[in-house]
């Protein structure tokens, strides 16, 4: 699958050929830092001064690289496809090689960063449980009512939440049976076939 680069994108990356190997390395580093931590205008200014290039050019170059890397990582394009996609920019072989290396080295990290942007439901973190027996209440004395009290820890967008829940023994056994059935589904032929064929 080939990446299609817009005219604006190509213009931004156009500063790379004149820049030279060291600059490309520096811009690549800035691009990765931007992906990890967000834009850092001061770092771009410092790089511009060090390399005697305009700040805007540096900015555009970094943004162009960021977009190139994120799109390629998102689509998980192969090395060959990446090579063919940047071929249209008309860069030197050496520049192409450094760009490919930059892509391959950082692809996994970029994918994990992008993975955190996806919409998410609260996710399971852990469960604590306790066995209780109710012996009496205001309305009824002399009871024996067993119950299992649980604290369900969930993560909602990195915020941990805890919910206190209770259930009776019969429901507990029902829950276990249902969830064991759920786990078993993954091992069924149907699921296995789909997982195999979808790679």
């Amino acid at each position, binding site marked *: 699958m080939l990446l299609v680069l817009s005219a604006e994108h190509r213009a931004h990356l156009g500063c790379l050929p004149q820049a030279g190997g060291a600059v490309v390395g520096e811009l690549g580093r800035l691009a990765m830092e931007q992906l990890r931590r967000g834009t850092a205008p001061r770092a771009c200014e410092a790089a511009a001064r060090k390399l005697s290039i305009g700040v805007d050019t540096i900015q555009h170059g970094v943004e162009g690289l960021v977009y190139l890397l994120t799109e390629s990582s*998102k*689509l998980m394009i192969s090395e060959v496809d990446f090579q063919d996609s940047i071929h249209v920019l008309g860069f030197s072989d050496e520049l192409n090689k450094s760009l490919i290396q930059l892509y391959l080295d950082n692809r996994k990290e970029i994918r994990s960063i992008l*993975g955190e942007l*996806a919409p998410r*439901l609260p996710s399971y973190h852990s469960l604590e449980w306790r066995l209780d027996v109710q012996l009496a209440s205001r309305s*009824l004395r002399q009871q024996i009512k067993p119950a299992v009290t649980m604290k369900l820890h969930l993560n909602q967008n990195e915020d941990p939440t805890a919910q206190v*829940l209770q259930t009776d023994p019969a429901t507990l056994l029902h829950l276990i049976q249902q969830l064991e059935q759920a786990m078993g589904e*993954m091992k069924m032929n149907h699921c296995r076939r789909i997982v195999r064929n979808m790679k």
Partner: protein
Amino acid sequence: ILDDPDLKDIDPTVLKHCHAAAATCILEAGKQKADISAISTCLEDCKLDKERIEQFCTEYQKNKDALEILLGSIGRSPLHITDVSWRLEYQIKNNQLHKTYQPSYLVTLNVESSDSGSHPDISFSCTMEQLQDLVGKLKDAAKSLERATQM
């Protein structure tokens, strides 16, 4: 009871007092899980004759179990789980990342509140390993329940 044709000759105030007194007596007996002799003694002290005491006790015996269940269900407790549903999905891509190829489970716990009767269900997603962890912990709870009943 105020509309009952058999009782229309009796003064409504007296009827209300009788009804309230009978209800209180029944509830106290239920709460304390009193047996027949205790109820009889109490009613004797109130100067009811033998026939009425017997009638009262027979009716009480008939409804004792339902009464106990009702009294036992009054009271506050944390959200009570009534059922669970699950969904297994295989994620292929999202708008930020393609070719994710990740199976995940979506589990929904149906819960009931002791106060209002209904409550939004609790849903969460988990991976295969997390589901295994959850089921493992639930099974530990069940095992300890079993051991407690055998003590």
